[in-house]
């Protein structure tokens, strides 16, 4: 894992002091709300329905046990004993006081954490594959580049007042788990015939009001040119992105309005003019960072573990959890443990401070101190020995963290919605809760197979409903919430945007509608390997429409 040196520490301390001064000037009235708002947002502080909300950055979703324990302490000391893990691999606290925020940030800085650029019209926290450095299918760990991007984008003088927010995702694996095609910029690592690594640069994807799949502006960018090229893209966007309408201000609209070829020409021309960036300094820094991400000292273990096999054979609940929550590790004798934050009837992504401490303990005992946050709002222990899995599962189960539903119907993504969020038009969480209760039977979830249900409480799509197999969008008409259903989205390698199935439903009708859709799929599928998404892509919406909207 990356560790701060004296310079990173100094930088973050100065940033906290700067924010302390800004907050004091706001509280004294020297700054107006209009002036302060962009400043607090650049430090992740929103004003939501009930209180201030602080979004803390978890850079590229990686954190240590010690950091997780601090997040738990912060939840107890400054909030109400819990936090909410987000679809951007961050954590949010919902009951924060402006007066206490600088103290909170100072405590975070002690464990090398901050809230810099978790909001505002700047380059946001860079996200990546939550299995980075552990996945069996990976070309290389993308996190050194993600950390390079974190530093490069931090308080970037040219790109802190962009037309709109800007999100970058990076993946080092052919199977995309970072949703790179639906980000402002997505970077996918490739290796050429000469064995050199480079980046495919995808631009103009995004969700929100205008969901779009990004296009490849460069097929293979040599690693040493990455920052110069990104600066060129950012500059074209900063200069030419629309500022007249915030709903048309994202880079995807610029790409769309200019056209892919013109956009590429603008970027390449700007890139050709970039001559001042210091490539040598940049490569040295990348090399320095890479040392922090050297492979942990894994033990040499047999591919199979007899203890683990015996536990699996003797404990059906454990075996079921293994089937859904364990992923293949690059190293023999190890596994990736996915911890579901989606208990039946629970609030997706919420964890109590006690649960955070439990995960911190497990990371320290069994996973080289490492934890990941996934954009599905779950947690990951990336490096667990097969021999330890049964013990890890028992501890998780005792703390309400062993739901065997990763990637299944119960593993629902939901934004905070109208229960917390000032932008929301409808509640998301109660819908997620009722659906997860409806599909409470784990055997049934496993029988249904891979199914991604995502819920957003407004058109801004923080719940990623466009890229769900079944997406649910909460809207409002005359003070009454209703929900639109989309089918056929995916954020994976073959990304697609779901499309609306038909007229919306009131909240209490949504679980029935989802059940009808799922039953229709079960009737249509040709065997257990024929997934929900496959069937939707093969047969289209028609059979689902017929089942859902047929006259009773």
């Amino acid at each position: 894992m990356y560790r701060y040196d004296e310079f990173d520490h100094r930088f973050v301390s100065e940033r906290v002091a700067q924010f302390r001064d800004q907050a004091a000037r706001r509280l004294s009235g020297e700054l107006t709300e209009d002036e302060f708002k962009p400043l607090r947002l650049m430090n992740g502080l929103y004003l939501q329905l009930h209180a201030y909300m602080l979004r803390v950055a978890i850079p590229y979703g990686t954190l240590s046990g010690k950091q997780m324990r601090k997040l738990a302490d912060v939840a107890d000391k400054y909030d109400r004993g819990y936090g909410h893990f987000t679809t951007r691999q961050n954590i949010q606290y919902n009951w924060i006081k402006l007066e206490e925020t600088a103290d909170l940030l100072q405590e975070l800085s002690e464990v090398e954490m901050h809230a810099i650029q978790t909001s505002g019209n700047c380059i946001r926290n860079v996200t990546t594959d939550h299995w980075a450095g552990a996945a069996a299918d990976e070309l290389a760990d993308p996190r050194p580049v993600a950390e390079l991007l974190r530093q490069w984008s931090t308080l970037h003088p040219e790109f802190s007042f962009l037309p709109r927010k800007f999100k970058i995702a990076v993946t080092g694996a052919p199977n995309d788990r970072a949703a790179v095609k639906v980000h402002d910029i997505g970077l996918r690592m490739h290796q050429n015939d000469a064995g050199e690594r480079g980046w495919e640069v995808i631009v103009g994807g995004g969700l929100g009001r205008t969901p779009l799949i990004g296009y490849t502006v460069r097929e293979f960018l040599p690693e040493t040119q990455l920052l110069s090229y990104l600066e060129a893209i950012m500059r074209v966007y900063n200069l030419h992105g629309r500022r007249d309408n915030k709903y048309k201000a994202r880079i995807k609209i610029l790409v769309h309005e200019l056209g892919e070829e013109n956009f590429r020409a603008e970027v390449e021309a700007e890139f050709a003019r970039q001559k001042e960036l210091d490539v040598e300094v940049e490569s040295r820094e990348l090399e320095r960072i890479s040392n922090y991400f050297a492979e942990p000292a894994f033990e040499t273990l047999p591919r199979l573990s007899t203890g683990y096999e015996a536990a699996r054979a003797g404990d059906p609940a454990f075996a079921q959890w293994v089937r859904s929550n364990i992923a293949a590790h690059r190293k023999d004798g190890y596994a990736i443990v996915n911890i579901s934050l989606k208990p039946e009837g629970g609030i997706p992504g919420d964890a109590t401070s006690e649960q955070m401490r439990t995960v911190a303990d497990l990371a320290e005992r069994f996973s080289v101190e490492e934890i990941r946050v996934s954009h599905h709002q779950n947690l990951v222990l990336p490096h667990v020995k097969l021999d330890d899995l049964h013990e890890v599962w028992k501890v998780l189960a005792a703390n309400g963290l062993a739901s065997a539903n990763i990637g299944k119907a119960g593993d629902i993504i939901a934004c905070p919605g109208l229960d917390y969020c000032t932008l929301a038009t409808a509640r998301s969480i109660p819908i997620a809760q009722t659906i997860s209760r409806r599909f409470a039977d784990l055997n049934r979830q496993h029988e249904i197979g891979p199914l991604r249900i995502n819920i957003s409480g407004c058109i801004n799509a923080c719940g990623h409903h466009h890229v769900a197999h079944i997406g649910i969008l909460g809207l409002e008409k005359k003070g009454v919430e209703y929900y639109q259903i989309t089918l056929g989205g995916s954020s994976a390698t073959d990304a697609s945007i779901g499309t609306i199935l038909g007229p919306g439903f009131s909240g209490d009708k949504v679980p029935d509608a989802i059940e009808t859709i799922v039953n229709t799929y079960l009737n249509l599928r040709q065997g257990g390997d024929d997934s929900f998404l496959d069937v939707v892509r093969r047969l289209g919406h028609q059979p689902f429409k017929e089942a859902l909207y047929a006259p009773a």
Partner: protein
Amino acid sequence: MNAIETGKALTGNRLSDGEVVFLTRSGAWSVSIDEAVIALEPQSEAALERRGEQAVAHNVVTEAYLIGVERSQGRVRALHIRERIRATGPSVRLDLGKQSQGTGGGFAPQS
């Protein structure tokens, strides 16, 4: 007789901690919607809005705006679900927010 009065209340979030507050008859801000002063006609709405502008200028609240409410038997209910949730707390965490502190007014957000 159970008369229901419909009007406007002035609400905002307190600058210091973001807490949802409502302007009261005395000119103070209360955390409980039940204590809100209610404008029953346009002139008094305008007066409330002026008080709101002053409170923003004096950095008491970050923003102040009118919401539709109805009052019955001393309890006040916001007309829009968003405002009912602000006045009571998250509908999915009844153990948190005003509803858990006895200041949530007389109505659950869903009702």
